Every structure is written in C-alpha cells, then in structure tokens.
C-alpha cells in the first residue's frame, strides 16, 4: 500500500494505492492520527485502491467520526468492488461518496 497526502490549507486529500487490509491499515491509521488535527476537509481518493477489508473499514469509520467533530469527509473514485463493500456494510449511509475526484 502507498499513501499519498496533499495538504492545501486545512484541506487534506489522501490517495491510497494497493490494499487497505489487516497488514496495511495500521499504517493509514498512524498517518491520519498525525495529519488530521486542524483539517476541516478530508478527501479520500480511492482511484488506485484495490480493496479494503474490515480492518480498513474500521480506520475509515474512525476518520469519519473525527471529521464529524471538526469538518467534513468525502470519498471519491470508488470502484465497483469497494462500492459493493460500502453498501453491504451500511457505510454508504455513514460516509459521503462523491462521483469523481472532486471536492
């Protein structure tokens, strides 16, 4: 997994390539812990993400909870497989999925 962060003022875009699974999720969790303070808009770009397991979903849930208290969070470029995962777990109702890489 490769994480790419782009901070523009208080707007952070996090792009993830590869797999967000049991092995790699702690790495994303650490990145978010250090990067989220002060961020008002968090956007995840999933263009290069193959899939996430429940460990990845837990990190997404945590990020959503934190952003609910300090701004907002969006997720973009979601593939069919990932959209299916979000649907089956009810995450579609918790998170804001946007149809492109946009803001």
């Amino acid at each position, binding site marked *: 997994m490769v994480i790419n962060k782009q901070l523009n003022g208080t707007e952070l875009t996090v792009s993830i390539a590869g797999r967000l699974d049991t092995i790699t999720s702690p790495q994303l969790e650490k990145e978010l812990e250090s990067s989220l303070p002060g961020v008002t808009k968090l956007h995840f770009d999933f263009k290069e993400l*193959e899939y996430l397991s*429940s460990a990845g979903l837990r990190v997404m*849930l945590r990020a959503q909870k934190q952003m609910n208290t300090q701004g907002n969070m969006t997720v973009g470029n979601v593939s*069919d*497989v990932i959209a299916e995962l979000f649907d089956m777990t009810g995450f579609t109702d918790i998170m804001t999925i946007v149809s492109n890489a946009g803001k």
Partner: protein
Amino acid sequence: MDELIIETKPKNLSRVLAFVESHTGALPKKSQYRINIAVDEIFTNISNYAYQNEPGIAVIRVAVNDAVTIEFEDSGVPYNPIAQTEPNLTQSAEERAPGGLGVFMTQKLMDTVEYRREGGKNILTLKKGVS
C-alpha cells in the same frame, strides 16, 4: 487440494494471500479481490483468537474448478464464527462500535461459508462460484 501449513501470526497474512493468489490468478480481478477479503477476515480471526496467547498452526487448502473452495483448519479453541450475531448496519458513525464486520462480510462475499468441528479441529469452508 493444495495446502499451506502456517503459523497463525497476523503478519503471515501476506504469505497466505500469496498462496491463495497462486491458485486464483487466472480469475477476474474483482473475484480475486472478493476472495482475498474473505481470506483476510478468516485468517486474521484465527490468528487473533484460535490459540489465545501464542501462535499455533493453521492448515489452508485451496481448490479451483467451477468454484473456488478454501478451507481453514486449526486445532484451537472450538469457535463457530458463523454462529455470531449480525452487526447492526443501520447505526450512525457515532453509534458504531469497531469490529464485528469481518465474518459478516465474508458471508456476503462468498456463496457459502460452512463450519464444522471434527477431531478436535475447527474447519471452515468457503465456496465461491467462478462461472
């Protein structure tokens, strides 16, 4: 069925996935991803819970014909993952507790998930058609 005998350490997931992918490599990517997620959930569960405090041994078997069959065997404490209650999927982000999703996702992603306890072993069999 080809089998992999491996210590139940969470970090061994990479080797387990590589073993499974050596059999599923010809399938469409989407099918491979769904299978990988299920394998992640089940192997992680076994690594964390089957042998309590220390790693033990798991045997993982894979066969691919008109369906992909993956079997997980461990000699740990009796545990039937599919007897657990389903997570509440309608809660808001604030209400949700972490966890509980892995087995649920596995059942949704696979066609069948069957558990049996046999000769002091937990055996969990996942099946997914690949037509």
